[in-house]
Structure formats: structure tokens, C-alpha cells
């Protein structure tokens, strides 16, 4: 890969986003295994380059919508890891006051319009955010993440077609990690590239290496430009891998059943986006090693603080169940 045209500060920014996601997810995995987190958690490890590269191409006004595997998207968009962690703990200081949890984190102030427990459920909402940008003749673009599995939902089809028919500034980013839960994409569809579906809506469909954060950034930037220029939606398919399971603790679900070979897993891990970007930066000597190291230390420290904050935060008052119903 060669990305000479991307400025160093952008590369550093993207690297930072990746690293923040990685450390966050590692911590969450640990906390979950320790039984400290209720509910389900779906980690983003292995896929960080997608959210980091894509969100670096967005402004604060642009909006994103996420999935059940959403921590990475929130962080990449600039979310506060303290309030995220508190939400995962179900605390009152969390983003959603403990009402949302891992699959429902939102931060409307930074244009993060919410994660979603329904596969494909966020895609139509993103079309609406695009509609409102178009309607107000704003520069804003609406972007939405979803998986390969979600691309088989009716919501995907209707949304891409609707955004195309109305020529809206919406960017659809399909994170093709090759699996929907335990079913390989190859069994769920008879095509190699989900990007090929874009032709059915008369919009560009672009295949990206989802392990290459800088490629993601470049492709997203082009799609954002198109959208801002009133040229309508783009579908980006990021080929990626989750290096862990579908959900933490899935061994319990699986009860010994295998669905992914060791070779495949090794291959996936070889495409680790953090290591790839680290190597790139190191080889080209773009950012001093000690800067990267102190970055990591800073993030690790911030995470420790986030966990402490989450732990120490009070549980929500029981009476708060009646808040936030109507406005």
C-alpha cells in the first residue's frame, strides 16, 4: 500500500482512532469474561480500520448510524469512552443512562445517531438523515455501517434504492467480515462481492480492503465528496475480518461446535489492521516510535480511568424507568 498523499496528521489521527478502539475492545472483552458486563457484547477487533478510516473522512456535522457491533463506530466518531464504558456497565452516567447498553449507544451531539440491535435496522434511518441533509441543502452527509449479513435484509435493498431514487447524500458502508453470526457469507449469498449489488440501484459500488485504514479513508473521502456535490449515494464494501467470535462468550452458545477453521482465523489475524498500519508508519518512518508508544500509554490510562469511572458511577435510580418516554 502506498498513501503518500495522506498528510501525517491524518494518519496519526486514524492510527489513534484504531488504537483507541482496540484497547477499548480488549478491555471490554476482559470485563465480559470476568462477568462484569451484563447482556451481549460484540467486539470490533480486527475491523477497526473500517470505522477509523471512514470516520476520519467525516466532519462533526456528518452523521453515522451503527450496528450491534458498534463500539468501534462510536469511538471512531469521537465518542467519550467514559460514558461508553459506564453504559456497558448499565450505569446512570452512561450515554443512555443505562437504558441502551452495548447495542444501543448513541451520541447525538457528535452525530452518532445510534447503534441498533436489529440487523439492518439502522439503514433506513440513515436514509432519513440523508433526506434531511438534502432537504436543508446542508453539506452534511449521512453514513451508515452494517454487515454482510445485513446486506441480505430487505432494509438494505429498499434503503439503497430509496437513497438512489431521491439522490440523497448517504454513504452505505458494508463491513463484510464474511460471517453473519455463525453462517459464512458464502452460504448466505451466491456472490463474491456485495459491492456488485450497487449496480442494481444505479450507484457506485466500491470494494475496499477493510484492513487498510488509509485505503478506507481515501475511498470514504471520495464518496463523501460525491455526496456533498449532490451526486448521490455510494456503497462501499469493506472486506474485513473479525478476529474474535460473533459475540463474547459464544463458546457457551457453540457448545463445542466449530464454524471457522484455524487456518482461516490465522489468515484473518494476519490482516490485523493495527499491526498493518503500525508497520506502514514504521517502515515509512512517518511517526516516531516513542510518540506511538506514549499514545498507547495515554489511551491505556484513559481506559483505566473510564473503567474506574464506570465502576464508581451509581446505578440508575429505579424511578428513572419512567423518564425519557415522551417529550
Amino acid at each position, binding site marked *: 500500500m502506498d498513501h503518500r498523499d495522506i498528510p501525517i496528521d491524518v494518519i496519526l489521527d486514524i492510527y489513534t482512532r484504531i488504537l483507541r478502539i482496540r484497547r477499548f475492545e480488549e478491555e471490554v472483552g476482559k470485563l465480559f469474561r470476568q462477568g462484569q458486563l451484563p447482556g451481549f457484547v460484540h467486539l470490533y477487533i480486527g475491523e477497526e480500520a473500517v470505522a477509523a478510516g471512514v470516520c476520519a473522512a467525516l466532519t462533526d456535522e456528518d*452523521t453515522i*448510524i451503527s450496528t450491534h457491533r458498534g463500539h468501534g463506530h462510536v469511538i471512531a466518531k469521537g465518542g467519550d469512552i467514559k460514558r461508553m464504558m459506564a453504559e456497558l456497565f448499565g450505569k446512570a452516567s*452512561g*450515554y*443512555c*443512562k*443505562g*437504558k*441502551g447498553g452495548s447495542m*444501543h449507544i*448513541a*451520541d*447525538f451531539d457528535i452525530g452518532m*445517531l*445510534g447503534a*441498533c*440491535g*436489529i440487523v439492518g*435496522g439502522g*439503514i*433506513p*434511518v*440513515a*436514509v*432519513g*438523515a*440523508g*433526506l*434531511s*441533509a438534502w*432537504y*436543508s441543502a446542508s453539506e452534511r452527509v*449521512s453514513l451508515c455501517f452494517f454487515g454482510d449479513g445485513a446486506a441480505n435484509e*430487505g*432494509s438494505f435493498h*429498499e*434503503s439503497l*434504492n*430509496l437513497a438512489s*431514487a*431521491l439522490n440523497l447524500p448517504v454513504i452505505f458502508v458494508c463491513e463484510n467480515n464474511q460471517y453473519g453470526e455463525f453462517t459464512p457469507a458464502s452460504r448466505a449469498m451466491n456472490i463474491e462481492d456485495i459491492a456488485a449489488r450497487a449496480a442494481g440501484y444505479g450507484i457506485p459500488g466500491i470494494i475496499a480492503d477493510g484492513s487498510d485504514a488509509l485505503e478506507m479513508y481515501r475511498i470514504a473521502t471520495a464518496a463523501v465528496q460525491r455526496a456533498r456535490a449532490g451526486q448521490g449515494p455510494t456503497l462501499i464494501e469493506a472486506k474485513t475480518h473479525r478476529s474474535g467470535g460473533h459475540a463474547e462468550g459464544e463458546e457457551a452458545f457453540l457448545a463445542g461446535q466449530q464454524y471457522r477453521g484455524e487456518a482461516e482465523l490465522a489468515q484473518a489475524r494476519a490482516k490485523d489492521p493495527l499491526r498493518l498500519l503500525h508497520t506502514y508508519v514504521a517502515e515509512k518512518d512517518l511517526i516516531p516510535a516513542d510518540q506511538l508508544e506514549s499514545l498507547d500509554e495515554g489511551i491505556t490510562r484513559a481506559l483505566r480511568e473510564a473503567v474506574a469511572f464506570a465502576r464508581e458511577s451509581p446505578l440508575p435510580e429505579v424511578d428513572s424507568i419512567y*423518564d*425519557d*418516554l*415522551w*417529550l
Partner: protein
Amino acid sequence: MPRKTYIAAVQEALAEEMRRDPQVLLIGEDVRIGVFAGTRGLHAEFGDKRVIDTPISELAVAGAGIGAAVTGLRPVVDLMFGTFMFLAFDQIANQAGAMRYMYGGQTNVPVVFMTQNGAGSSAGHHHSQSVHQFFMNMPQIKVVLPSTPYDVKGLLKSAIRDENPVIFLNSLSLGGKRGAVPDEEYLVPLGVADIKRAGNDVSICAVGSAVYTALSAANALAKEGIDAEVIDLRTLSPWDSDAVLESVRKTGRFVAVDESFPTCSAASEWAATVAERAFHDLKAPVQRVNNKDVPVPFSPVLEKAVLPSAEDVIAAVRRTLE
């Protein structure tokens, strides 16, 4: 006061709100043409950007309305027929009906989903159903089903100004119904019932087309000296239980009339509430009048037989007087 049709009142409400607030817009299938006339003429006045024809994609169109609502617009999404909402059920229930709460109050969701409710076109099961009962179950959704031109206009305007998702149901069979509608601006607040006929012997609660079924039963009963009160709830969620309970305290008898399948219907809810909270005022068992418990058949003679009739209501009232 000028007399206008129900559907003309819908048009007026939409036009007035669109004039008043540039954030209000209309999206749906064939809203330019306005198949049921509720949206007719608006495209000529407001143009392509505010009266937006969509592909036939209920799920995405509903979701687009939601997404637009949480980013500053006030969309009215036209979904044409009640059963078509089943295709958008996920977006309505899982997104509109949950976002504000799930995200800890970070957003409001000022979207209106408008559709035709109930039977009336003799077009078979897929075009003849009431759907209000489904949305009444959803904690974060408001549901409105007006019966008169006056109410439909005032309530639709309130629904559009509401910060929460509202299912706004027009009674399919009432489109051509005429009634007094002032030319001056007015609002009818959500959540407030209206006594359509005052009476002392029995309380009949209804919405939409069933209000007329109840009224014609009441008129027939009046000839026998039975004085029925007809309460038009107008808003189904949140609903004005106070008005109903107050009436029952007076009459001691309760009949729910509801054009919908019976089980877990609005009538069930009203009857249960009355039985729970006005038990000691009741002189007789609560009674429900719904569709017969079968799908809606096509043939007009059968369709008529499955829908609640004035005779059904009269019989129910008689049961309360036994």
C-alpha cells in the same frame, strides 16, 4: 361554519402545517396524486422537495421518516393502507417506538405515520383491516383515530406538532363524511376524548367509524327511552381513561365498540380498564362489540356481516340492562 369532508379536512391540516413550518414534509407512495385524496393538491403548492413520491418500500420509507425526524425535520409518512404498515412494523416498533427511551432521551422523534384504517372498500382482507390495536401496545407511540372532519383536522395538526411518533389513522370509510370545519385555525389536543352524545343510562366508547355505529345504536335506543352516552376517544394512545371512567360512574354500564379483530383489541383494553377501575360503579358486565373473529371477507354481504353493526351495539346495550 363551513361543512367539509373528512378527507378535505386532512388536506387542510397538512397544507396549513406545511405553510406554518418549513420542516414539515410529506413522503410516501403516490403522495403527489394522493390516492385517498388526503395529500391531493399539496404537490402543486409545495413542490417536489416537500411532497415526495417514493418507491414502494414501506420499511425504508418509514425508516427514512424516522431518520429525518431525529435530524430536525417533521415528516408525515403516508403508508396508504393499514396492512401495509406491517411491512414497516420493524421500523415503527423497534426504531420510532424506542429510540428516545433507548438512547436515554437524547432525541425526540417527531414523525407522523398516516394511513387508512379499517374496512370500507370491499377489497378483501389485505385492504380492510384496523391496525390501531397493534400500535396501542407500544409504549412510546401515540395513536390517533378521529371520526369527524373537525376532529381529524385539529388532531392531525396537533400530531404534526407533537415531538413524539404518532400513528395517525384515517377511517377508510369516513373519507367522504361531511361536517363543520371552521376556516380559522384551531387544534384538537391529543389524548382528550369527546362526548359525541351525552346520556345517562349506558356509556358507549368508540373511535373512528365505530363512533357512527355507536351513535346510530344510541338513536335507536333513544326511541325506547334508553339514553346512551357515546364517548369518542379520538386518541387511542395515550387514551382518556378519565373521561370514560367518569361516564361509567354516571351510567353504571359500559359497552366498547371497536372495528377490529376482538382479541387484544382496543375494546379489550377499555373493557379491562373499566372493569378494573370502575368495578363498584358497574351495574352490569362490561360488553364488547368488535368484528367477528375472522379475517375480513371480500363479498360485501359477508364484509358487512363481520363488521360491528348498530344491531350488535343495541344487543350489547340490552345485555347491560338485563
